[in-house]
């Protein structure tokens, strides 16, 4: 549905010559139809630039972006308008028109597309129903909560019946509970409408909840891509590891201050709920202290991750015992000093 072939983007620097900065360099990736694709990266990594290349809000400096069969850079004015009707977008700060009502905002893209009044009216009502804002049709954005504003944003983005939905930090301005609701709505749209979704975030938690695959962006380059389980449970790049430990609430240097061997245990599926820790400790005589961890779901699969320091007894045997039970063990740090 979307492919990036060796795409780079350089913004002209503030001065007349020089000072150009590369926001993206040599980015290649592809997003399959019906997939929820996450892009995670720190602030300034180039995430917004990447997503804005998809609907032609930015032009690539090099390489090619193909969306729904169209080479975005090669499209003329009308071609680009047609593409933008097939690619909806929502934003961190919602970007609703404060001068229009909720219904007016949702109707706006339909009017831009030249739909008849009757069609605009019917479609607007249908969309407001879908996002649960029928009763708010005549309110203005300023009268809504953040979550409601984002729902208006979503209804508006869906108005022209797009195949792709772009979400640029769509939940970053929302509280955790509202974030949950919006992500749920996005997930439903993906399932029910078969919408392809590109979701940009700096929070691993958001990726974990809704994405099928994720690309990790650092300094304008993709440093890791893969299924969410793989990147989340076994990150290969330092950047991905940082996002994961951040999401787990384990400080990166947790091992440094404690004795023993620091390991991270990953439980998946059934093993998540088995009382394995005590059994292993009794059998091998190791002592453990828990440095951090959590039990969660990756989309539908429960998983647990625990960071422990193991001391005394037969540490090697304990590790083998965990592995025999289907628990993945990653060494985080050797005896702390």
């Amino acid at each position: 549905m979307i492919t990036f072939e060796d795409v780079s983007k350089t913004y002209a620097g503030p001065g007349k010559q020089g000072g150009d900065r590369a926001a993206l360099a040599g980015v290649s990736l592809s997003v399959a139809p019906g997939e929820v694709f996450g892009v995670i990266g720190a602030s300034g990594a180039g995430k917004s630039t990447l997503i804005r290349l998809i609907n032609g809000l930015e032009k690539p400096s090099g390489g090619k972006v193909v969306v729904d069969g169209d080479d975005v850079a090669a499209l003329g004015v009308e071609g680009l308008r047609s593409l933008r009707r097939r690619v909806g977008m929502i934003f961190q700060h919602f970007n609703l028109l404060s001068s229009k009502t909720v219904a007016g905002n949702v109707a706006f893209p339909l009017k831009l597309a030249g739909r008849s009044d009757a069609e605009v009216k019917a479609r607007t009502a249908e969309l407001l129903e879908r996002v649960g804002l029928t009763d708010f049709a005549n309110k203005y954005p300023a009268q809504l909560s953040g979550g409601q504003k984002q729902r208006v944003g979503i209804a508006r983005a869906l108005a022209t019946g797009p195949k792709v939905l772009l979400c640029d930090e769509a939940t970053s301005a929302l509280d955790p509970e509202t974030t949950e609701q919006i992500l749920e709505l996005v997930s439903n749209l993906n399932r029910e409408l078969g919408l392809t979704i590109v979701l940009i975030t700096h929070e691993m938690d958001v990726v974990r909840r809704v994405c099928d695959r994720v690309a990790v962006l650092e300094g304008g380059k993709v440093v890791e891509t893969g299924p969410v389980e793989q990147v989340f449970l076994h990150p290969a790049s330092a950047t991905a590891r940082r996002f994961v430990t951040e999401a787990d609430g384990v400080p990166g240097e947790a091992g440094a201050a404690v004795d023993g061997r620091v390991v991270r245990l990953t439980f998946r599926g059934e093993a998540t709920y088995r009382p394995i820790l005590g059994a292993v400790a009794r059998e091998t005589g190791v002592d453990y202290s828990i440095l951090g961890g959590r039990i969660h779901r990756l989309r539908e699969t429960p998983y647990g991750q625990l960071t422990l320091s193991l001391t005394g007894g037969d540490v090697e045997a304990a590790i083998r015992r965990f592995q025999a039970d289907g628990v993945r063990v990653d060494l985080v740090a050797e005896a702390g000093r």
Partner: protein
Amino acid sequence: MSAFMENIDWSEIGQATLDTLSMLGGSMVLTVLLGLPLGVILFLTGPSQMLHNRIANGVLSLVINILRSVPFVILLIVMIPLTVALVGTSLGVAGAIPPLVAGAAPFFARLVETALREVDKGVIEASFAMGARRRQVVLGALLPEAMPGLIAAATVTAIALVSYTAMAGVVGAGGLGDLAIRFGYQRFQTDVMVVTVVLLLVLVQALQMVGDAVVRKVSHR
């Protein structure tokens, strides 16, 4: 008290008030018709805007600055030949309107530009992302979003025009300002001065109140 009011000719005051109102009305309409598009173009050709054009923006900006830096009294006099060419006379209400518009339109254009700059860039970007043409972005998003600021700009401009109309009295435009200068100032008729100034104050106050009320009505922030 009756002695104080002895110089007042109420029918003359009434006529002067009407003259001031028609100068204000006529010049305000033309100022908006001219200044609004100028302000929009000034904004759109500005740095990193959708019609960015250094030369067009620079020239327009310079012309506006020149007109704004000429004191209005000078503009009144310098414009007399042009005014005669445009409306056939440099006197009366008709003769006052061209210089009033020339003085106020650049001022209003600047205020329009400022009001447009206040519009959230994200909203403009979202409009493009929805497949809007430039024209649709300007008419459907930019101007409606800037409406409270534009109304406030129009209010400030209308009030500036009230004081310009008073100065226009110098070239025989008539109106309340003319009365204040000719009778109140030159003939020391303090009562005429007081009445005209009070009427001008009422006019300014009314414009401000109406302007503020409309801003509240169109503002949904």
